[in-house]
């Protein structure tokens, strides 16, 4: 229990509760279940992407192409829908997830086989992915009226009172939680980031695990691509532009260490929710939404400072008396 209270999750829950309580004090409507469900729904895509980014960051890499990948896969789904309006959504979903995974695999292969720093690789693929959207469409938009109703309606349709979009997020939370805590792959991601040398000692292939982290990140970006396009019912080159930074921010706020090996599924979820609540609360408390960016900037800086303090290694304690006190 004591350990939990010191954890990032507990700090975030406390911060979120304080924030929500303060808002609710003046604007009780904010904490009605229906409004909170709206906030969650609005944050769903950020949550899904944060998990992909988390897997990559755990291995001491970073995926800056995640939003561009989303945009490209989103455009692919829109174009498929325009060309074959009657095609089953299951097929569309399968295609975007696969496409995203392949784009992620390109990142992963460059990092794994050529040892290029992930920041350079994904900086490059980020512009390539966006450029590819332009090549596919010649810069044209795919507008709402060109998409089929089923395509647009699916994420909004409700199941048990929640939109399908929210259910996607919930299911992904479950799957990622299983992957991270219950599979050898998930645990190996932590091992690689925490102690790469020791990971080799226990027989983990560091490069290969990184590759799969990028594939996972890509697949989730692909899925998010469809969700984004269908939700906003428009597709063009610049959708979700700059969103990769929100995703990294959610991870950092969630306590995922940029130097790898540290971070939990709960942390990433709460980090994303924190940003989502800030974004949704501002209009409610009559603060101009233009404050959102500066606020998330300050939150990121504070979160990094917290992360760094938690990570600062204790030196070797040689004196027995000091050890007893410590």
């Amino acid at each position: 229990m004591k350990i939990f209270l010191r954890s990032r999750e507990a700090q975030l829950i406390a911060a979120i509760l304080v924030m929500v309580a303060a808002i609710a004090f003046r604007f009780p409507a904010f904490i009605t279940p229906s409004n909170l469900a709206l906030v969650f729904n609005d944050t769903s895509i950020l949550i899904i992407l944060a998990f992909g980014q988390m897997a990559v960051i755990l291995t001491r890499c970073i995926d800056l192409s995640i939003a561009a990948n989303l945009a490209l896969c989103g455009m692919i789904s829109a174009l498929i829908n325009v060309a074959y309006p009657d095609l089953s959504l299951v097929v569309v979903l399968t295609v975007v997830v696969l496409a995203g995974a392949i784009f992620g695999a390109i990142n992963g292969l460059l990092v794994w086989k050529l040892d290029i720093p992930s920041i350079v690789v994904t900086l490059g693929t980020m512009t390539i992915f966006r450029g590819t959207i332009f090549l596919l469409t010649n810069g044209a938009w795919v507008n709402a009226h060109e998409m089929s109703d089923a395509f647009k309606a699916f994420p909004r349709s409700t199941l048990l009172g929640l939109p399908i979009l929210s259910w996607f997020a919930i299911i992904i939370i479950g799957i990622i939680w299983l992957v991270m805590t219950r599979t050898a792959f998930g645990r190996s991601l932590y091992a690689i980031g925490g102690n790469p040398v020791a990971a080799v000692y226990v027989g983990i292939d560091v490069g290969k695990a990184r590759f799969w982290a990028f594939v996972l990140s890509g697949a989730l970006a692909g899925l998010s691509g469809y969700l984004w396009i269908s939700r906003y019912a428009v597709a063009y080159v610049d959708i979700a532009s700059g969103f990769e930074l929100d995703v990294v921010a959610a991870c950092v706020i969630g306590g995922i260490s940029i130097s790898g090996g540290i971070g939990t599924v709960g942390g990433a979820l709460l980090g994303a929710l924190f940003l989502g609540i800030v974004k949704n609360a501002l209009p409610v408390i009559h603060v101009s939404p233009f404050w959102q960016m500066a606020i998330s900037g300050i939150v990121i800086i504070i979160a990094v400072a917290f992360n760094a303090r938690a990570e600062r290694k204790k030196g070797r304690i040689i004196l027995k008396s000091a050890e007893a006190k410590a």
Partner: protein
Amino acid sequence: MKIGGTLAAGPFQRHSMPLPPRKPVTRMETPQNDIVGTAPVFSLSGISKSFPGVRALHNVALELFPGQVTALIGENGAGKSTLVKIMTGIYQPDAGEIRVNGSVVKFPAAHHASLAGVTAIHQETVLFDELTVAENIFLGHAPRNRFGLIDHPAMRAKAKALLFGIGADVDPETLLRDLGIASKHLVAIARALSIDARVVIMDEPTAALSHKEIAELFTLVDQLKSQGKAILFISHKFDEIFRVADRYTVFRDGEMVGAGLVKDTNHDKLVKLMVGRDIGQVFPKGESKFGDVVLKVRNFCHPTEFESISLYLRAGEILGFYGLVGAGRSEFMQALFGMTKPSRGTVELEGKPIVVNNAARAVQHGIVYVPEERGRQGTVAGLPIFMNITLPSLHVTSRSGFLKLANEFDLARTYTQRLDLRASSLSQDVSTLSGGNQQKVVIAKWLATKPKVIILDEPTKGIDIGSKAAVHAFMSELAREGLAVIMVSSELPEVLGMSDRIIVMREGRMAGEFSRQEATPELLVRAAAGISEQAA
């Protein structure tokens, strides 16, 4: 054990850790006789291994017997760590054979060694701080449920049983980072047991443990023995060796110089084997002429690392610092050099009190430090030799901030020549040099600043014999020229051969001070290990 960055990324497979029951790697040959301990379960013969510029191991042999503890004894740099890396598949030997149960095997990667039942518990525990105890124990071979997912309840239960079996009071669900060093060791031991090891290597397992914890560890070693495991126990501490070991093997300078049963030997014989060399001949120690006191340290304290260190140092004097690894010597030296902040104490240089709160200030005052971790703290790999040498002297070689390459080359040439550096040119990348020559570059860098006090931390660690002699000779020469020298060393002959005076540290405190005349190997070893006269 220090883990170098030189691991070749082998074609390891992620899921290839063995699930018990283990696949037999070698044909199980039934020993000719039933008496446990007569046939070695693991043996090495003719093993050699070289690195650029260093011969780490030469034609060494080792045999481990089931149910017995073999102590591996040797100074730092004797080749023990390299041997452990060969036994666990991290390094490949240049020559020689590894046999498990009599059959020749090869360990091309780490998991091959663990498949064969060889596991190591390392000095600086190589585990994962952010994973739980249970996950650390079972990483790579966790129990699975029928969906193929990690079966946490089963893993927890198994971990609990393993930990209980070794008497460890550790909750399998705690994160490793929340444990103390002793508990981490226990987790490492549990991991070793979880893969059903036949051979357990314990690399200086007691280096960071308290007396009580050491006693508990020994109980555990006895338990492992009774389970028929073959144990390789690496330690500097003689009392521990006599307490737990059945057999011993002594390494010196990468060669095996002795082996036998512990009951047939004694403390003195082992020290002699380990130290070996005739001390007077190797070390070029001339007549010492001392000048005035240059450095005076009073009651230097650090909150966690050392306490009440006081010393004086005269010009022309070499002051040796002896102690076991982790005794706080390097930590003290780095505080003196301004890298860490002491909590109390004063430093006087040439009679004037000085405050050294960063390395730049220390260098200005004329106190310089040749670090033990040469690759990390000494040389700037990627820069050429001359830039390494002039780095602290740029204010001298440059004019109002603008570089003067000709001055830099002059300075570098002068000092590389003095130190007889072996290189093709001054523009060669320093990382392409051998360990000994890199050390010469670091020393040249500091001499170029014309220091008053030079601190050498394990100056000959990991360098070849030839360069060692050169460094020793040079150290004497420096002292003769009136430089005040502090030398930290864990090598007895070096300390005894080079020092005018010797301070021994143990557990962060001064454990004795000896003049050159009164110092003997036995005295130093006893002071460092804290053994009383009777125990030895």
